[in-house]
């Protein structure tokens, strides 16, 4: 569904991504793991059209989307749940969700998607008229995910969805992602929680210093000595 081929990305003079390639099949969870500063967020932002790659191509559903601006990429059905949740703090939960449905593809399906999101996260319905900044961390993450789903995406990129959440809530979030994938959504999951994300994913990639050093199925990577040493402390 998504095909990233040999992209180079620079932030000023510093190279963030070096010949990175990635393949995300339809209805799968693909995990990208790596240390801080390895380029995971750069990769997500580049796919989302927020950075322009210096070279290489990005294809989505057999269409070249390299260099398209972010609002056009979103409108093709690529959503993202950005790192740190990024809800609009002074706007209400309902307003936050409405912001997710601003893009053209989602406008007509607003009522249906809202119903779906509220059914998935009943807590959000309870707090619909509450300012998003007053929600707990876990609720804000639910809101961020719900807001993204309001955009009617076919592929969602999750950037560190469990960051800063209580362990019990982390389980909720990951279960949500698994349920979404089972419901037909294609997911890219960037997680510091390597063991869990690789177990969840059908395919994983290891990103180190801007390069893809390893790839394979989730189980293969979990069994790989280098992964076990570097990320699982075994």
């Amino acid at each position, binding site marked *: 569904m998504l095909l990233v081929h040999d992209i180079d990305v620079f932030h000023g003079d510093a190279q963030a991504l070096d010949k990175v390639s990635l393949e995300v099949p339809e209805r799968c969870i693909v995990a990208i793991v790596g240390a801080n500063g390895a380029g995971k967020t750069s990769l997500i932002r580049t796919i*989302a059209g*927020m950075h322009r790659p210096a070279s290489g191509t990005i294809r989505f559903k057999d269409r070249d989307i390299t260099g398209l*601006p*972010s*609002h056009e*990429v*979103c*409108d093709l059905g690529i*959503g*993202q749940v*950005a790192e740190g949740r*990024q*809800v*609009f*703090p*002074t*706007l*209400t939960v309902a*307003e936050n969700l*409405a*912001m*997710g449905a*601003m*893009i053209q593809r989602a406008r007509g399906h607003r009522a249906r998607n809202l119903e779906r999101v509220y059914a998935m996260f009943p807590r959000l319905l309870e707090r619909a*008229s509450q300012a998003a900044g007053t929600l707990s961390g876990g609720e804000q993450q639910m809101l961020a995910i719900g*807001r*993204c789903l309001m*955009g009617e995406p076919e592929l969602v990129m999750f950037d560190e969805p469990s960051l800063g959440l209580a362990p019990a809530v982390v389980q909720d979030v990951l279960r949500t992602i698994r349920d979404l994938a089972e419901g037909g959504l294609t997911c890219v999951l960037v997680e510091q929680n390597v063991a869990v994300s690789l177990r969840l994913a059908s395919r994983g990639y290891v990103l180190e210093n801007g390069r893809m050093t390893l790839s394979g199925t989730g189980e293969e990577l979990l069994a790989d000595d280098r992964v076990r040493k570097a990320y699982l402390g075994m």
Partner: protein
Amino acid sequence: MNPFTLLARLVDEAPRRALVLLAVLVAVLLVAPVALDRYLLSVFFLIFWFATVGQAWNVMMGLCGQLSLGHALYVGLGGYVGAVLWVKFGISPAIAIVPAVLVAMAFGAAIGWLGFRFGIEGVYFALLTIAFAEVTRIGFDNWSYVGGAAGFFIPVTAGGGSAINLRGGPLLFYYVALALMVAAFVICAALRRSRLGHAWLAVREDPEAARALGINVFRAKMAAVIVSSAMTAVAGVVYAFYQSNLFPSQSFDIARSIEMILAPIIGGLGTLFGPILGAFILTPLGQTLIALVEKIAGRAIPGVNLVFYGAALMVMIWFAPNGIWPWLKKKLGIPEERS
């Protein structure tokens, strides 16, 4: 959507008590002139005028989060275009409003494009707006066709002239400015509930998150500058005909830019009632102070109201940093503005 359903929706969604308050206010203001003398009429003109430009500025800052400290630019441009077309070509300001608005929009678009295209944000964007106002002031200072630094004057026609050409006394300007204030309020209320208004709020709250949701941040910001500059230019035309004179050193002055933004800040940034409330509080106090100082000192001391505004701003930030309207709204039991 036709205007009637739009209006019905506005009435439907706005807090009821706030609407009652507003209706009473407008009704009182419509009949008030019977009890007002010329001086008070002109004070009310200033209140309405500052509420209007405050509302316009609030579109950029309060809704979209873009700080402009050069809004006098659009007042001056609107004023000059309207005045020059009337004096030199005999074109009625009722028509000249169109080119006046277009010129201001072009300047707004230029500033916006430079700022937003090249990622100039926050304070640096504010500096850009100041720079544009200053450069334009210098340009008009040296442009002899419009009188240069010596100013440009609109002759006061004998017998008052006709209302459609904005030639008349304080009563005419009272009603014109009242209409502007009401129109600005209705426009902003409609915008806030529109898709564009939602995009502005998203950009104000978190531009990165807005981008991640597929909102075209550049276009939203451009729309904010253009709408804001257009609304300000209309007020600028009216102000020029009210004053009947234009000086570059006043029209494009940063002091005026600052004075314009005080009402929305003190009333409540990003709220619809804030600019109106702020103007109703600040302008009468400022005018009273000017009159008082003149009486005590025996002569007018220019800028004394600005000193007062500065003090008011400091007190405000201390006690109600979000502005008076959010505080008052809570006291009156008016629920949050829903969108």
